[in-house]
Structure formats: C-alpha cells, structure tokens
C-alpha cells in the first residue's frame, strides 16, 4: 500500500525551488519577456553596463525583499524594512565616522542594530500579540524618527573610512574576470539570498518559518516555543535589513537619514510578484529575486526608453498586474 517512491531522491533546496522548478521557470518567463521587449525597443538597453546597472539597482531592494520574504512566510508583514535599512546605515555612520571604529566592527554594529530592531518588532508581534502590520508600522515611524535624531538630521559621510564605498561599488568578480565587472553589492545580494534560501530550506528556523505561516496554533500545540522562533525570524530579517543599510550607505558613501520611506512597498511588491503568498506558509527566495529583478528591469527599461515620468508610473502599475496575472494563469494550468 505504501508508495515509497523517491525516498532517495534528494529534495532540492526547499527555499529556492520549494514549489517545483517548473513553476519558478515559468515565473521567470515574465522577466525574460520584459528583457526581450526592452531590447527590441531600445538598442541601448542590452549593454553589459546597463545590465550591471540593473543588477546594481536590484541589490538594495533585493536584500530588503529577502528580509520581507522571511517575515511574510510566517504570515506577518514587515513595513519597517526601508526605515530600518536607513537606521542601520546611520548606525554604521555613527560607528565608523563619529566613533572611528574599524570597518568590520562598524559593519557588524550596523547589522547587530538591525537584528536588535527586528527582535523588537518580533517581541511586539510574538509576546505582545500586536498585529505585524501595526507593530512594524510603529517601528517604521520610530526608526524614521530615530535616524533623524541620531544623525542630527544630516547625512553622515564615510570619507574617513577608506574602502567603505568599495563594499558596494568595488568588484571582486571584476578583478578576476575583467569582462564581468559585477559590483560587490550584487554579489552580496546573491550571498544573502543563498544564505536565506539555505536557512529556509534546510534548517529548523526555516522549517518553523513555513510552519508558523501555515498554522501557528498547530505548531504551538506540537510543543514548539512559537514565540521564541518568531522573534528569531524577525531578528534575522532585521539583520538582513542591516546588510541592506550597509549596501546603500556604501553606495552613496554616506548615511542619508531621510531615505527609506516607500522602500517597504517596493520590497513587498517584489516578494508578492515572486509568488510568495501574503497569507503565509509558502514562498521562495528565488521568486523574490525574480520579483525584484522584474521591478528593476521595468524601471530601468522605461527610463532608457525615455518614457514620460507619468506614463512610466502607469505602465509599471499595469505590468506588475499583468506579470502576476500571467504567473497565476500559468500556475493554474500547471495544476
């Protein structure tokens, strides 16, 4: 009676290809279609330098979207990713420029600050039972204000920290393969995505992330300390936002304390376009990356085409809807 088919078949990294490589390949199709469309429309689009520019443009939003994916899979939502990123950038600025810490320590401080703030959100959600929307909306405002307070409402420059701007702008890959000067920021995004994928697919933390989003009460009644795990997931997401803060600070070679509002919607949009369900329990990092790329290609392509700003917005909105619709329709067909 038992059908022990493919016990031996290794399950691939769940985070990356949970719901079947096939489907992800299909989600990929919207991205390819956009790339082809823009290439035809403008000869300037398909240049190496522009492709790298698109990847570079994906890096910050991609990292934030990865953070948001984790929280969304638990069935929550994180509106604070954008201002938390800024807050961490400011912390890095304070640590490196004002306190003169060594580079690595300053970076670590920023990431730790991110994880700590994530832990706060997680505590609000898990222990105080505040709906994630409100908890992270509150955090978004608090962090926005604190960034201004701590920085004295002025940008903090990293001129005294040589090499800081190389974190995002330098290119280790380019040093090895000069033809492919992919900036480190992009490399970091992929490393973060790989790590998050691994955590989601292969570790207890990841398994509980999905389980919490699927049925939190059932998990609790299985003797799991759901509150503690949820807090860990939010802290992890916060730490990833900290990496995002480092990336943006390094790219701008300064911590801009007023930035970050509105980034949360873009990040969440990337997550949802990537096929992660806002009701929790399912989602993939690969999908999120594709979602972030779709957004970046769209924005870049329309700008390269010099479409009037107001029409850029209209077209972006329409294509987001269409991309998700196409994905839905294909999934339905795929069963």
């Amino acid at each position, binding site marked *: 009676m038992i059908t022990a088919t493919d016990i031996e078949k290794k399950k691939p990294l769940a985070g990356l290809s949970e719901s079947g490589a096939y489907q992800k390949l299909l989600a990929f199709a919207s991205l390819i279609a956009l790339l082809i469309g823009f290439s035809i429309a403008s000869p300037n689009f398909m240049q190496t*330098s522009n492709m790298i520019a698109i990847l*570079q443009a994906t890096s910050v939003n991609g990292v934030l979207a990865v953070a948001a994916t984790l929280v969304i899979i638990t069935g929550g939502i994180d509106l604070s990713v954008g201002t938390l990123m800024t807050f961490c950038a400011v912390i890095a600025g304070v640590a490196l420029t004002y306190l003169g810490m060594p580079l690595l320590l300053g970076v670590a401080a920023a990431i730790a600050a991110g994880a700590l703030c994530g832990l706060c959100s997680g505590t609000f959600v898990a222990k105080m039972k505040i709906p994630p929307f409100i908890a992270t909306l509150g955090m978004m405002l608090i962090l926005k204000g604190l960034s201004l307070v701590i920085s004295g409402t*002025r*940008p903090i420059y990293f001129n005294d920290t040589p090499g800081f701007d190389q974190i995002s702008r330098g290119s280790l890959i380019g040093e090895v393969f000069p033809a492919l000067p992919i900036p480190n920021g992009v490399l970091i995004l992929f490393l973060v995505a790989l790590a998050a994928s691994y955590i989601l697919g292969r570790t207890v933390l990841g398994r509980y992330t999905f389980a919490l989003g699927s049925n939190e009460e059932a998990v609790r009644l299985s003797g799991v300390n759901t509150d503690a795990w949820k807090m860990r997931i939010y802290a992890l997401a916060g730490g990833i936002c900290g990496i995002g803060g480092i990336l943006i600070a390094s790219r701008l070679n300064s911590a801009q*304390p007023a930035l970050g509002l509105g980034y949360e919607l873009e990040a969440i949009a990337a997550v949802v376009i990537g096929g992660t369900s806002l009701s929790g329990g399912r989602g993939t990092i690969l999908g999120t990356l594709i979602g972030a790329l779709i957004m970046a290609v769209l924005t870049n392509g329309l*700008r390269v085409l010099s479409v009037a700003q107001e029409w850029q917005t209209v077209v972006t909105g329409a294509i987001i809807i269409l991309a998700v619709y196409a994905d839905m329709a294909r999934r339905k067909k795929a069963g």
Partner: protein
Amino acid sequence: EDVYIPLVSKGFQHQFWQAVKSGAEQAADEYGVTITFEGPDNETMVDRQIDMLAAALANNPKAIGFAALDSQAAIPLLKQANDKGIPIIAFDSGVDSDIPVSTATTDNAAAAGLAADKMAELIGGKGKVAVVAHDQTSRTGIDRRDGFVNRIAEKYPDIEVVTVQYGQGDHLKSTEVTKAILTANPDLSGIFGTNEGSAIGVVNGVQELGTEGLVIIGYDSGKAQKDAIKSGLMAGAITQNPVGIGYETVKAAVAASKGEEVPALIDTGFYYYDASNIDDPEIAAVLYD
C-alpha cells in the same frame, strides 16, 4: 513675554530645509524668540501642510513663517490668521495673496536659468543635455526645470534637452535615473540636477558608470556636492541662501509682530559657485554642509 513664531515649511529632512531651519534658529537666538520648524515629508502633501498650519495657529503665535506648497489651498487659514492679527511672512516661494506682509525668497527660475547659461558655456554652446529633477509637480521642481529648459530653448538653439526625468530628490533613485539616461544617451554632454539629492545622484551615477567628460551642474550645497566640485566631478552648482532665507524670515516676523514696517520683498539671492570661488567668503557664507 515669550514670543512664539512657528515656521511651516515645505519640507523637513532635506539639507536645504535644515539650513533654512538653522538660519531661523540663529535669528531666534538673536531676537530672543521661540520658533518651531515643521514641514511635510515631501512637497506633494499639500493638505498635510494645511494641518500643520492649523496646529500652529492653535498656539496663538505672534507671527507665522510660511512656505506655501500651494497658495490657494492655504487661503482660508491665512485669512483666519489675518483676522486674528497674526502677521504672515512667506518664505522660499511667494504666496499668491496680499495677506503675507513680507516674502523672503529666491527666484528659482532665474537661478536655473543661470545654471543653463553656465551649462551652455561649459559644453561649448552645442550638444545634448538632460535634467534630473526632484519633483514633477512642486513649485520649486517646476521652476527649476522650466527655468533651465526655457533658457536653453530661448538662447541656445544648438543645445537639445533630450530628457527630463525625476528621482524624487532621493539619492539612490536619482542615481538609477542618471544611469538609465546615460545608457539611453551615450553622447550626452551635460546633466543638470535640480536639488541636492538629484545632483548627488547624478554624480553617483556617473561615477558608477565610469562616464567621463560629462558636465554636471548641481543645485544647493551640502558636503558631498562641495566635495564633488572641489574634485572636479561636478563643474559647479547654483546655491540659494537658505540660511539667509531662514534668518530673514524670522527677523521680518519679529519686526512685523511688533507692528514695525517690513519690506514687502526680501530677495535673499542666488549664486553660481565652482572650484574657483567655492572658498570665497561671500560664497562660503551661503553654503551649508
């Protein structure tokens, strides 16, 4: 008795507004008055600014400084203030009404025109240029864009403004916008960035793409912009006198609250600065970090 003068501005976090604020605080110290300085998150939030004005009125101020996002929208509240005998000092841009007793402002359109003249001069009177603007609908955004574009159209027939794109004054977005513009127009000669965030974004984008020989003209100051000018990345920039605007606004408000005569228009002026004159005392005084 405590003299309270609220300033309702168009923005808050941007360095330009922070410089206005510091000028205002300087004057407040000198004249021994209390001020508050507030502005919405971005220059589209007309109604939020009205709410701020309403809250300011509730505190029975002696005078109000006001940089209107939209003059018309504020008229009922301005009338209310007028009826209560609270003088209004307009700053940054004027208010289409005879209620404000004084206006401390820069002519943004003329300043952007000057940027166009400098651009034309530096690229040799011909070629393609682009504008990275900070806002499509706000008064400052429109005036600077149109001031630049119109001057080019009027005076320099061989220069073409190939595109105007908007980065919301967000450094990162302006960077991406710049890179897209350069991708689409590899033969570009110059870019004008209409505020600090836009100008820095242009510099960033050019740096990241490694484009050379491009003339960048910026607007406002700030440390990054000053550094870019000193290092030659940026040819030069227009600066207003934000500290002066803030200072003059409070000064006029104090005078008006005492019933003294104040000038109807206080032109705080604008300047073009580049590596050659950036350290001149006259220029250095109006720049901020």
